């Protein structure tokens, strides 16, 4: 039996990942993305995508409703702020527990089916949750306006302890700006480590076996339901954790967080980065959030300044064309990138990285087959 807890490669990967995450404020500088709010989002959606990948990447069950757990996490965290305390820890614990429970309920029903039926079921549940949050449960969710903190919130625990903090804090240390980023980054690293352990464990092996051939598993006498359900709940808890973090860095929860578009986004992140890989989904999340926040902020003024060196007529033409792909048109750019990646690198960006490494290591043997493309289930 293998008694080594962490293999050398895993350790190196974890170390590299940790350094990359903690050094974000430095290496994101040239990209214009090194400000706390966006880096917090990078960390938060990284957690979301890692969790999603535990379900989709390992078991192959494609859930189209993960935003529901994300939203539930946010609402739970904000309610913890409103009712108990501005401290982040109870908010996180509550969010993870409640979204886990929620995932247990939805997973129990949805996992009775597999394949496309499972996807449709999760989509239906998520859309139901969205509509509940949007218009039925407005006393709890405050609908379209979004759930916010007010000065009149009771905060029973804070009141009992005589703390009068206005913004979310960690044991008295306010989580604004960079403090908030490092808090999220720390949790991202922990989340990554746990996902790594799950992937390498016998449990992870079981999940991958379910992906490769569930029928065979049944024939050999395995009951796969508890495993898929466990994976579903774990990934729901990851989503809840991410949702809670988003509420901690910015104490507001809105229903649009649960919309199908948000569920679709995490699927895109995972496929873009590389399904089934550990780092891929995180990279996918970073790319999508980068596009959403930076590309969408470009306007014609900025483009004109960028292409200032071109002759006048040409400059206008270039700006006219490129302006369709930035600002409001960032979805178009993202769509193009997505199509290119799925067509040429079906395994996502991680496959590109693998091919590069492969090519760099064996320059003498050109044309060696790269990992065979597998359809994204």
């Amino acid at each position, binding site marked *: 039996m293998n008694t080594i807890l962490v293999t050398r490669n895993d350790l190196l990967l974890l170390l590299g990942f940790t350094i990359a995450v903690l050094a974000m404020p430095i290496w994101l500088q040239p990209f*214009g993305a090194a*400000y*706390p*709010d*966006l880096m917090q*989002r990078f960390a938060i959606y990284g957690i979301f995508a890692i969790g999603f990948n535990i379900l989709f990447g390992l078991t192959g069950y494609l859930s189209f409703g993960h935003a529901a757990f994300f939203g539930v996490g946010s609402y739970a965290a904000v309610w913890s702020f409103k009712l108990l305390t501005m401290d982040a820890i109870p908010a996180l614990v509550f969010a993870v527990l409640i979204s886990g429970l929620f995932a247990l309920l939805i997973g129990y029903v949805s996992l009775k089916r597999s394949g496309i039926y499972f996807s449709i079921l999760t989509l239906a549940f998520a859309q139901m949750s969205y509509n509940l949050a*949007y*218009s039925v449960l407005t006393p709890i969710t405050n*609908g*379209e*306006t*979004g759930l*916010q*903190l*007010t*000065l*009149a919130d009771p905060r029973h625990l804070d009141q009992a302890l005589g703390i009068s903090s*206005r*913004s979310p804090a960690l044991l008295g240390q306010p989580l*604004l*700006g960079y403090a908030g980023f490092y808090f999220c980054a720390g949790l991202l690293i922990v989340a990554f480590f746990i996902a790594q352990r799950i992937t390498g464990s016998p449990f992870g092996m079981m999940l991958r076996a379910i992906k490769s051939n569930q029928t065979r598993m049944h024939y050999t006498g395995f009951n796969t339901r508890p495993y898929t359900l466990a994976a579903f709940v774990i990934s729901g808890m990851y989503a809840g954790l991410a949702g809670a973090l988003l509420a901690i860095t*910015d104490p*507001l929860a*809105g229903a*649009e*967080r649960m919309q199908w578009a948000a569920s679709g986004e995490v699927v895109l992140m995972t496929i873009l980065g590389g399904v089934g890989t550990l780092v891929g989904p995180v990279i996918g999340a970073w790319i999508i959030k980068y596009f959403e*926040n930076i590309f*969408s*902020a470009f*306007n014609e003024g900025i483009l004109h300044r960028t292409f200032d060196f071109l002759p006048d007529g040409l400059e206008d033409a270039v700006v006219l064309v490129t302006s369709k792909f930035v*600002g*409001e048109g960032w979805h178009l750019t993202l769509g193009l990138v997505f199509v290119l990646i799925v067509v040429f690198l079906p395994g996502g960006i991680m496959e590109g990285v693998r091919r590069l490494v492969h090519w760099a290591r064996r320059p003498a043997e050109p044309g060696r087959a790269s990992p065979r493309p597998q359809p994204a289930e």
Partner: protein
Amino acid sequence: MNHSKKGMSRRTLIKTGLAGILATGVSPLILTRGAWAQEFCNNPTGDTVTIGLNLPLSGAYAEEGADEQKAYELAVQHLNGEGDGGLLNVFAPSALKGNGVLGKKMAFVTSDSQTKADVARAGATRMIERDGAIMITGGSSSAEAVAVQGLCQEMGVIFMAGLTHSNDTTGKDKKRYGFRHFFNAYQSGISLGPVLGDEYGADRRAYHLTADYTWGWTQEESIKNATEALGWETVQAVRTPLGAADFSQYLTPVLNSGADVLILNHYGNDMVNSLTQAVQFGMRDRQVNGKQFEIVVPLFSELMAKGAGENIKGIFGTSNWHWNLQDPGTIAFTKSFGAAYGSPPSQAAHTAYVQTLLYADAVERAGTFYPPEVIKALEGFEFDGMGNGRTLYRADDHQCIKSVLVVRGNENPTSQYDVLEVVREVPREEVAYDPTIFGGELGPAEPAPMC
């Protein structure tokens, strides 16, 4: 040789050394402590000062957002001394000099809020954290305004709300760092009620369709209160999601409800769609309970009226401002906006422009960008010449108290812009109300230590 005695002994050397180390180590702390009083989020140090425009350039209120952006650009030009000066010439009392703000040129960054509260907050955060915006302004939805205002309170950055009509913005959710020039649903109710009573009588049955978020809720409540005070009965109030393209499923039940007035608490594209569909359903040609069926749109705008075209004729509503007013402020603004963009400004554009000038003026009067001082300068400020008559920035809730217009879709428009006629200008005394009725607290003025 007395050298050794005159020179420093080891003890003095250590003493002076230590004192020196202490002095160099501590004095910067003392100095920075003193400087802290003026150290605040995005204190502009260069020769420009940046403001952040958070505008819905896509989504249900996109058209208002685009018009607001034009107005902001115009305001920034005028503040920097370019163009014809616009309202700078008529606004009084004014401390503006037309050379920027406190000698610094004003610049701006923009962000598309997509008419979504979450996105608006992310955009505002980006503009504050990355682009160094000293003030955030804009927005065309109360959900956005309430969300961004909360954020600005936390970060210690002043928020000058754009078009937001919900009572909550300066009511339940009011914030020390948030300021609103636009009027609110409660004032719409007070102004519109008597006119509706005169035109349609006291025996009416109203059916509300309401945009399902903070603005819709408060407007529905305010109009309900105003009409029920007239003796009207509210048959039903149905909530519709923001940005729904098709309202037919909500309009069909109206036909069989026995209601004879339809009140559309919708705005922007939503209102254009719901009104057009209601007219297509033949509602305006119907007779119910022996009376002509009527439609009321409590919050009206120029852009919506244009979008709805023919359907708007004869329909009552309220407006914050209209370009066709004949006071010097309105004339000056309409002229410079028209010269720049070839069309008269909407009320959204007007409020955006005025808010920018009011902020700049408050900074000039305060003599600093330090937010608590600017807030003090704005609170209780009374001014004139901005097109709404004498206006008070009320200190209790940061709501501007000024006259409100009751408008009606023009039956015989002389141009494509002449779509609304002003029926009544309700004086400011009539629409002033007790600021405590909505609850809420402004909160503290001290800025967050960092942002």
